[in-house]
């Protein structure tokens, strides 16, 4: 049952609205730095746009989806109203206002520091204050998820927490802890400089703090997608989830090992020792486990559905799947992109292979394929699945949905595959201008142009998404019944306490953080002479 429908709808609508704007900026950026564009602008505009695109797509859009979906899961899976709905609205407002506060200085050119902050660059303080407001708003959500989880458990001592809620709380706890790194960086390193209290900054330490957030934030983005895989996909295709326990273990593994691995983003940074880089690399390798478990479980669940529908043979069952169902299509396309993106990720996490692609366009291609592709396409699926229950109106433009999903998939492949390729050729990232007339990079011109075509396809898909959702909002009223999640083949009646609670896993998460981050952070805090003068962005305006 969904009670606070307006709350959830508000989150989704704001998320997709800012997503549409940021998508437009993204497509413009692809064109701007391509050989199709005769260069005529100040590079400053490009960096403004990249900062806005990254901040919205990285902080605002997925956070709103995770929050809105989290509230929906709480009410639908626990089958009772959300505790703290007023606080939830307060969190939503904080995120919305924070997004505006952060974006105004960016659009004015006062904070073109990119969404990863990049100290010693320092921009207008309101940019960072806005980002902090977004994070604090999301922390309200984290607290509400924990409170609802604990309250339900207290009232239902003899029942396991529904899988969707368990996974949702795993994502909330992971985000709560992983956002601490960026918060420390902003509050103790960047804001004092941005406010003019200090003029130097320990860029190395700030980068280590940001790496604390930077990798696990991806898993925070990923968890709604995985929840959709496990709890929406099997039900939507008329099957059952292969294993409830396997799903819980996958989410637990994310909680434990997704966070203390961020130093693999700092392989080229001198301030972290090679030994700790190796340890982070090892744990990054471990984080492939929950994804491999997931791929297996989801494929097995699909096979169950197919065989129930009469599918036969070793591979023949694939054709018996309900391919016209948008959730089926989205999940399959998502898994394909996850496969390519994941393979690329394994290259990034290994020290030697990373050195060939570090800071090249490969990285940008990689995270667009994983996040923009595999993850975001499931956000669309979640919206399509939830929409009729939220609006109380029919959502049946299935043909349009399929077109939208296919276009997103094709667009993302056409954008990101050439992007990876030019990265291997050595094209650096975070640059506004490339002189394609130079013989050294002239061969990259075709691939970069291909990416522009992909970006336009993605933009078309984004427009279709909004059309589908708006049509759903205007369709005739229809009663959809209660919102249900997938049922496991063996529904859990009794499960071990470890798979029904987070105490042990949170202890391991914090413990591993201390082991993997404790010494590098402590050492940089003690070392003298590591501060450098801040570079003020837009200060002269």
């Amino acid at each position, binding site marked *: 049952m969904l009670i606070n429908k307006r709350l959830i709808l508000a989150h989704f609508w704001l998320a997709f609205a800012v997503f549409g704007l940021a998508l437009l900026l993204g497509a413009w950026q692809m064109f701007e730095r391509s050989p199709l564009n005769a*260069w*005529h*602008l*100040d*590079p*400053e505009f490009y960096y403004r746009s990249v900062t806005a695109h990254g901040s919205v797509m990285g902080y605002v859009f997925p956070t709103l989806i995770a929050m809105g979906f989290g509230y929906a899961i709480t009410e639908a899976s626990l089958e009772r109203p959300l505790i703290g709905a007023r606080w939830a609205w307060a969190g939503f407002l904080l995120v919305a206002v924070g997004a505006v506060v952060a974006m105004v200085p960016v659009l004015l*050119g006062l904070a073109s520091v990119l969404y990863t902050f990049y100290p010693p660059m320092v921009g207008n303080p309101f940019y960072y204050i806005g980002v902090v407001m977004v994070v604090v708003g999301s922390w309200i959500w984290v607290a509400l998820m924990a409170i609802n989880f604990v309250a339900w458990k207290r009232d239902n*001592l*003899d*029942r*396991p927490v529904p899988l969707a809620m368990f996974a949702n709380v795993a994502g909330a706890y992971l985000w709560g802890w992983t956002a601490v790194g960026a918060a420390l960086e902003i509050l103790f390193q960047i804001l004092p400089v941005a406010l*003019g209290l200090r*003029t130097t900054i320990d860029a190395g330490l700030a980068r280590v703090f940001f790496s604390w957030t930077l990798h696990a934030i991806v898993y925070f983005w990923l968890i709604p997608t995985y929840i959709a895989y496990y709890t929406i996909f099997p039900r939507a295709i008329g099957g059952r989830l292969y294993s409830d326990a396997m799903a819980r273990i996958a989410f637990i593994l994310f909680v*434990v090992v997704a966070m203390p691995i961020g130093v693999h983003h700092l392989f080229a940074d001198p*301030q*972290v*020792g*090679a*030994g*700790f*880089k*190796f*340890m982070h690399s*090892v*744990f990054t390798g*471990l984080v492939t486990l929950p994804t491999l478990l997931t791929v297996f479980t989801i494929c097995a669940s699909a096979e169950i559905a197919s065989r129930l529908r009469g599918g036969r043979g070793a591979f023949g069952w694939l054709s018996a799947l309900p391919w016209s169902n948008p959730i089926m299509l989205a999940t399959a396309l998502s898994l394909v992109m996850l496969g390519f993106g994941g393979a690329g990720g394994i290259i990034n996490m290994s020290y030697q292979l990373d050195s060939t692609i570090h800071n090249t366009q490969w990285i940008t291609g990689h995270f667009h394929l994983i996040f923009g592709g595999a993850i975001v396409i499931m956000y669309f699926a979640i919206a399509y699945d939830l929409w009729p229950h939220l609006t109380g109106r029919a959502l049946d433009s299935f043909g349009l949905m399929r077109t939208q999903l296919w276009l997103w998939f094709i667009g993302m492949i056409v954008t990101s595959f050439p992007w990876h390729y030019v990265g291997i050729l050595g094209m650096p990232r975070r*640059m506004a*201008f*490339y*002189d394609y007339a*130079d013989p*050294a990079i002239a061969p990259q011109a075709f691939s970069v142009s291909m990416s522009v075509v992909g970006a336009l396809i993605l933009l078309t898909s984004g427009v279709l998404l909004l059309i589908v959702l708006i049509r759903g909002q205007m369709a005739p009223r229809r009663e959809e019944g209660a919102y249900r999640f997938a049922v496991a083949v063996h529904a859990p009646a*009794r*499960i*071990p*306490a*470890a*798979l*029904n*609670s987070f*105490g*042990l*896993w949170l*202890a*391991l998460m914090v*413990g*591993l953080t201390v*082991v*993997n981050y404790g*010494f*590098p952070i402590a*050492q940089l805090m003690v*070392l003298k002479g590591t501060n450098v*003068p801040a570079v*003020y962005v*837009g*200060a*002269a*305006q």
Partner: protein
Amino acid sequence: MSEQPLFSVRNPWFAASVGITLAIAVLAALAGLIWLPLAQPDLKLTGIWDAICSAAGVPRAAREQPSLQPTFKTSTVVMTPAMLRRSDPVSIGRGATLAQRCAICHGPQGVSDANSPNLAGQYAAVTYKELNDFKSGARVNAVMSPFAANMGNQDMLDLAAYYAYLPRVPSDRADTNAAAPPIVTTGAPMRNIAPCGACHGDFDTKAGSPWLGGQSAVYIKAQLQAFASGTRHNDISEQMRNIARNMTPAEIDAVAAYYEAQP
């Protein structure tokens, strides 16, 4: 649900998860902090503790080597946000009085046709830095160096505030329709030259970079040539020397003519 205590070695979930995590962490630490560094002969480690310290990133004292000092003085000015603050009227008034003796070259209103820099409307941080550099000897000029030699810090602040206060006057050769040359709009990335306009006006300004609009072309060209040859060397971190060295004579001419025609 299970009544078994969660945090107990008798709980198999606890024992297994903590045991496996610890084992992986210990093995990773042994490999990363001891085995791998010792396997690299180039590191010239003296033992296990040395290997651990090296791999953990503990800085090791570099061998004492005399550092190379330039044969000339470099700028000691540090750009801080305080330089961007607006000055008070008293400072501007004092600056106006002091500026009487600058007028012979820089004009009574901060503008002149003598091919010396037009100072009217120039950023205070820029004027202040140049005066400092003339005083310290980081920048040398037969006319300016003696003037600056006897100035106190407050004098320089006041002069900078006064000239920043004066309105900019369009050049006699103003031509706002002149097309910006590529070096101003795009720079030359393959030669490590950022667009001039990204720091010196037209698109954006950066703290400490002078506004070039309306400056004499002769002056701009002479300064770029001085940066390129190294006779002028008061640019912080060699920013302008690195750029000017890589510019072609044609580009220098184009930039000089373009900025002279700008407001």
